[in-house]
């Protein structure tokens, strides 16, 4: 069945509204058990993280392994604004703005990684991003004003399923528009061959800079959501281990695919929940999965493929 573009657009908006209404009603009505709601919120946060990392690692083909650093900066920035600068009574209404501020703080930090990426690629850039992750963690541990290694607390629990669902939708929509835009073709061109992209008129520096900024922004937003869900953050939450979890989700679901990111985040989050009875051994599964994936299916389940709903509009049906 071929769905006309107009109907597809309408259905997409209806689906989005329905998702938001459900995410508001279901937890409020008490039909969903709070444990399930909790897992769904973590799932949403993981989806945002995976989508944002996939922009750099999947679409652009760069290799960032320090994404938890951006998440941490977003989490700390958003928490500090909520706790220090805003009266409690306002906190509920200013929450979206606080998340955006956290995202912007992460995006500014993204500059630190974006500029070295002009000069270095591949494994050297991987080292830069890793060093960035380690530096963020180390700075947070040494900042006594935000609790140092003990962590930072005092945020009210502002994150709910509605906000998580809303931000997942925003991330998907923004990234979908981005990757199918002229700009997005530049991103893919860098993945295929940076030198050739440069020669055919792609301003690779600008494209890389913006891609890192967008990616860091959404990771920061996810950090803000995470902080206001857990109500307690410490530097260890944003270590290289967290970055590796994100890598597993990206490469499991599929590189260069929005569907893949959503799928990877879902499978990994649910798997870790199901494996909870294994105790400490649970943490062996993620790394093992990563190694097996790299050997047998390095592009992931949906690598470079897309569910038809997320595909770009066929140009012919438009005219």
């Amino acid at each position, binding site marked *: 069945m071929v769905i006309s573009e107009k109907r597809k657009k309408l259905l997409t908006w209806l689906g989005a509204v329905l998702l938001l209404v459900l995410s508001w009603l279901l937890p409020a009505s008490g039909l969903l058990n709070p444990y399930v709601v909790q897992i769904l919120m973590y799932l949403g946060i993981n989806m945002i993280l995976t989508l944002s990392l996939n922009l750099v690692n999947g679409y652009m083909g760069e290799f960032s392994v320090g994404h938890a650093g951006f998440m941490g900066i977003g989490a700390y920035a958003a928490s500090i604004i909520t706790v220090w600068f805003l009266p409690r009574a306002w906190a509920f209404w200013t929450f979206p703005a606080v998340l955006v501020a956290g995202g912007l703080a992460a995006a500014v930090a993204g500059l630190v990684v974006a500029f070295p990426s002009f000069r270095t690629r591949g494994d050297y850039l991987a*080292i830069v991003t890793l060093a960035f992750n380690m530096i963020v963690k180390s*700075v947070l541990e*040494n900042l006594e004003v935000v609790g140092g290694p003990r962590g930072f607390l005092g945020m009210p629990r502002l994150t709910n399923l509605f906000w998580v669902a809303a931000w997942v939708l925003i991330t998907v929509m923004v990234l979908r528009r981005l990757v199918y835009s002229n700009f997005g073709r530049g991103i893919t061109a860098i993945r295929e061959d940076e030198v050739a992209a440069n020669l055919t008129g792609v301003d690779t520096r600008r494209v890389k800079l913006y891609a890192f900024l967008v990616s860091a922004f959404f990771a920061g937003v996810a950090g803000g959501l995470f902080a206001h869900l857990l109500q307690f953050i410490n530097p260890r939450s944003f270590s290289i281990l967290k970055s590796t979890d994100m890598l597993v989700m990206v490469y499991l679901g599929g590189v260069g695919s929005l569907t893949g990111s959503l799928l990877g985040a879902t499978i990994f989050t649910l798997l870790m929940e199901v494996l909870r009875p294994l105790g400490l051994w649970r943490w062996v599964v993620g*790394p093992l999965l990563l190694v097996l994936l*790299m050997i047998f299916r390095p592009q992931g389940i949906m690598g470079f493929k897309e569910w038809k709903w997320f595909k770009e509009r066929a140009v012919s049906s438009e005219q």
Partner: protein
Amino acid sequence: MLQILGQNILNALQLGSVYALIALGYTMVYGILTLINFAHGDIFMVGAYLSLAAAAFLLGLHLGLPAVVVFVGAMCFSMVLTALLGVTIERLAYRPLRQAPRVSAVITALGVGLFLENFTLGLLGPEPRHFPTLISVGAWEIAGLTITPLQILIILGAAVLMVLLDLLVGHTLLGMAMRAISYNRQIVPLMGVPVDRVISLTFAIGSAIAAAGGLMYGLAYPVLDPYMGVRIGWWAFIAAVVGGIGNIRGAMLGGFILGAVEIFTPMILPSSTYRDFVAFSLLLLLLVFKPTGLLGRPIFERV
């Protein structure tokens, strides 16, 4: 003041020896495969645990064995087993990816490292283990400096291993094969060099040296935990990059520089918790301004 400085230089030499031994493994594998073996720090951790197991076993026999026998026994045991581990990892995880994009191999290396950490954690639990004291002879006072036999043992032991490795790479057939593979991996098999075997041996030697480093680290800083390889491994890795990754003498130099960074950070900055910040900032600055390290050759990308 001069005494404090001298004492700290001695401590930096001791720590730097351990970093240099681990940095050698990173740099050898990078030189031959252009792969950053992120699992190497965890191979070092396994080596330290294996030496602990061997030392505890030998001491548990209550035969009154002299410390030297226990030391040598633990060293041989852990070096052999860790070499086997290194070869196994290369065979199972890295060899299938030799033709794959380099990024896949790097991610695999990260995965292998985490696997080793979490496997050890699952096996032994999160409690740190204490390394038995093998050498408890008192310290000597020389020119106001306190020198322990352990320090001498570590610095000399590391130096001997480094000289042996330098001779091996520079003056033997195996070393020549290693340098040839590092120079051009496409042509070398046509000259009759058994590439797979040379790569396996490289992993074996690198891992065995890391195991020796693990034993020395365990003797000097006798608390082991499954995540110890992360920090030490990263520091050794920075050492390899500072010296110029792929360059064996550079790794030794980098190791001593990083040892000095760690020891002198608390003297200049308010607390030793800034050491990671200093080391990784050093790495970041170096990568931006001199990506090839102090002794490395420049890399050109062929278009």
